[in-house]
């Protein structure tokens, strides 16, 4: 038995009758009775400062006639997984939302996809299933056919209303003015300041989790790469890590370094895009033009390295498909040197602009407290003082051999989020240099003929450029996937925007939204 964290010891001393079902150095699983769950969840969340990282359900049929609901808490770099079984006809489970706010969307999602009802949940409106979906359509139940055509019914979604003199609503979307994805925002405003924002998403729900269940562990990779286009490599890598641990594959060291390299390249081009986008929304076209030019250089570099501007197809289960030749390495160093110098110049120009700084500071503040309550992750979290980075906290790929400096700011405003990105650009370029210097030689792909037993599962976490990406993959019969839960960082960060905008004026919303830059596709699945 490896060393236990103090948090796990405290759980055990407070609840001595709890017996760990599974225990490894980084994860402890407890099977909990339905009635005891709220008490335990509250203890983990409030007393031990556990962040609710993931909440999802699994339909265990046909193996067992029951559903399981899994609550994953992240405590000082350890994971505690609580498993609750829901069996029988009542299909009810107790909601933990009243004490753990971060559970809100997860529980509504479970209700929509599995038809299990979170008792005591304060908001039981539909989330994924829009109002025109017929009653009783729960696509992740095993008896629901993946290619079933869903019918239509009449229905109306009720937004929360604020009433009063001079208060009116501004609906935006699902089709926006720019070239962006589909989502709906409903503002309640009194004059200019926003009193309330309600987000309604899931327009782009494509049934990805159900599509995963039609695939085998090996063939599902292209699907993971298309969960969210801008995080192609991050999602692909997170899926690979989970599948590989099920298949008992040891990824060669050379391939692990290449994976880190590609992940940093993806982070770089996205961060450049974001810095440019924040500048456009403050009408600073010059900075935007330069950033998008640098982003283009990086994407062309990706294309030359792997044949895809988004690094699609660069991953394989057990390794990577592409090596980087010596010539490409020196080319990469040249491009990055030039870009870093270029960007440093631009940075000083950007921050010499007082009117820009004025727009950014104190705009869209997400306080540390609100960020914590929502379990916010990634860039947004690090700009609000949440010191977390999966690359450092639970190393994957080659990060256990690399030193990561985590960028941290406390103000939680747009400027802090911009600064996090700018500092991470420099950090990523430094990391890429370190990776290229240390790059070992060896094979690119490992193979194995291990077959996981049905019901075996694995969890993986990867720090994509947006933040922590989680995958839960459960094996089924004949190498098929029984359940694959995908959690993009956007899913937990979206509800936090609703709080960051309050009190800001409507024209600042695009700016705040850009500074979060969350994925709609990764959220809607």
């Amino acid at each position, binding site marked *: 038995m490896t060393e236990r964290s103090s948090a796990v010891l405290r759980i055990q001393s407070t609840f001595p009758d709890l017996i760990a079902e599974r225990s490894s150095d980084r994860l402890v699983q407890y099977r909990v009775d339905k009635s005891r769950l709220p008490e335990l969840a509250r203890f983990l969340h409030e007393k031990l400062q556990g962040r609710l990282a993931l909440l999802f359900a699994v339909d265990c049929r046909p193996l067992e006639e029951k559903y399981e609901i899994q609550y994953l808490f992240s405590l000082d770099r350890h994971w505690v997984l609580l498993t609750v079984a829901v069996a029988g006809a009542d299909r009810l489970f107790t909601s933990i939302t009243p004490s753990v706010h971060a559970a809100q969307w997860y529980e509504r999602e479970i209700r929509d996809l599995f038809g299990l009802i979170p008792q005591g949940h304060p908001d039981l409106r539909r989330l994924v299933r829009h109002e025109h979906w017929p009653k009783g359509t729960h696509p992740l139940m095993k008896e629901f056919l993946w290619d079933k055509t869903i019918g239509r019914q009449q229905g109306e979604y009720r937004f929360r209303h604020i009433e009063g003199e001079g208060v009116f609503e501004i609906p935006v979307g699902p089709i926006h003015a720019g070239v962006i994805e589909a989502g709906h925002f409903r503002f309640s405003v009194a004059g200019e300041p926003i009193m309330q924002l309600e987000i309604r998403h899931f327009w782009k729900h494509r049934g990805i989790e159900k599509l995963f269940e039609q695939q085998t562990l090996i063939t599902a990779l292209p699907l993971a790469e298309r969960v969210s286009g801008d995080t192609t490599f991050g999602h692909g890598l997170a899926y690979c890590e989970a599948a590989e641990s099920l298949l008992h594959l040891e990824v060669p060291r050379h391939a692990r370094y290449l994976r880190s390299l590609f992940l940093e390249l993806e982070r770089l081009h996205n961060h450049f895009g974001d810095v440019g986008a924040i500048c456009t929304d403050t009408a600073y076209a010059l900075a935007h033009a330069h950033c998008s030019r640098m982003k283009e250089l990086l994407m062309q570099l990706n294309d030359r390295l792997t044949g895809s501007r988004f690094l699609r197809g660069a991953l394989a289960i057990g390794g990577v498909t592409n090596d980087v030749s010596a010539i490409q390495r020196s080319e990469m160093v040249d491009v990055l040197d030039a870009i870093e110098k270029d960007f440093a110049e631009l940075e000083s*120009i950007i921050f010499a602009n007082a009117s820009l700084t004025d727009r950014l500071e104190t705009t869209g503040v997400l306080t540390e407290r609100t960020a914590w309550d929502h379990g916010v992750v990634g860039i947004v979290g690090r700009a609000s003082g949440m010191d977390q980075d999966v690359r450092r906290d639970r190393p994957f790929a080659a990060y256990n051999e690399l030193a990561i400096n985590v960028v941290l700011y406390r103000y939680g405003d747009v400027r802090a989020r911009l600064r996090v990105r700018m500092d991470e650009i420099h950090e990523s370029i430094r990391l890429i240099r370190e990776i290229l210097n240390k790059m070992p030689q060896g094979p690119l792909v490992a193979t194995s003929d291990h077959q996981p037993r049905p019901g075996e599962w694995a969890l993986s976490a990867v720090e994509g450029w947006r933040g922590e990406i989680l995958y839960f993959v459960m094996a089924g019969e004949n190498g098929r996937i029984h359940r694959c839960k995908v959690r993009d960082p956007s899913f937990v960060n979206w509800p936090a925007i609703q709080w960051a905008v309050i009190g800001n004026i409507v024209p600042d919303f695009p700016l705040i939204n850009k500074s979060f830059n969350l994925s709609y596709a990764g959220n809607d699945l």
Partner: protein
Amino acid sequence: MFRILKKSLKTGVVTGQYTDAAQSCASLAPETREKALPFKQSLAIREVDTGSCNACEMEMNALTNPVYDIERFGVHIAASPRHADALVVTGPVTANMEHPLKDVYKQTPDPKLVIALGDCAVNCGIFKGSYAVTGPVDRHIPVDVCIPGCPPRPAEILEALADVRRSRPSS
């Protein structure tokens, strides 16, 4: 101010610094050429996302960067379907986006072109058959031009749009 000027002079002109599209798009149907005539080589585009993974939108956005600079060809991206000559649709049409798509199509004034961008819009791509996907774009609205690829490179999109612009009989 001097720093900005210095930076701009140092950077120089970057437009056109990209590898040309490998292959040209399939040739346009004669009736599409006919339809594109009134636009007189300029095109106002409205982008509609009906469920893509966002890669196609990123490539559409890349078209406006200084390297591709699509506006030099008279193509610009309009903020409303009412200002658009052409709709560019990306992604398979999800059950939730079916109505908004039809609505946008209705709001776009005639004559109009519909361009399906990316594999998903053309044939649903990897999402084919899913319960939440109601079909490719041409199941819901008539499509004039298809640009395949997952995602197509900006140079390929540019090439295809240039094809539409060339519709005018050479003068």
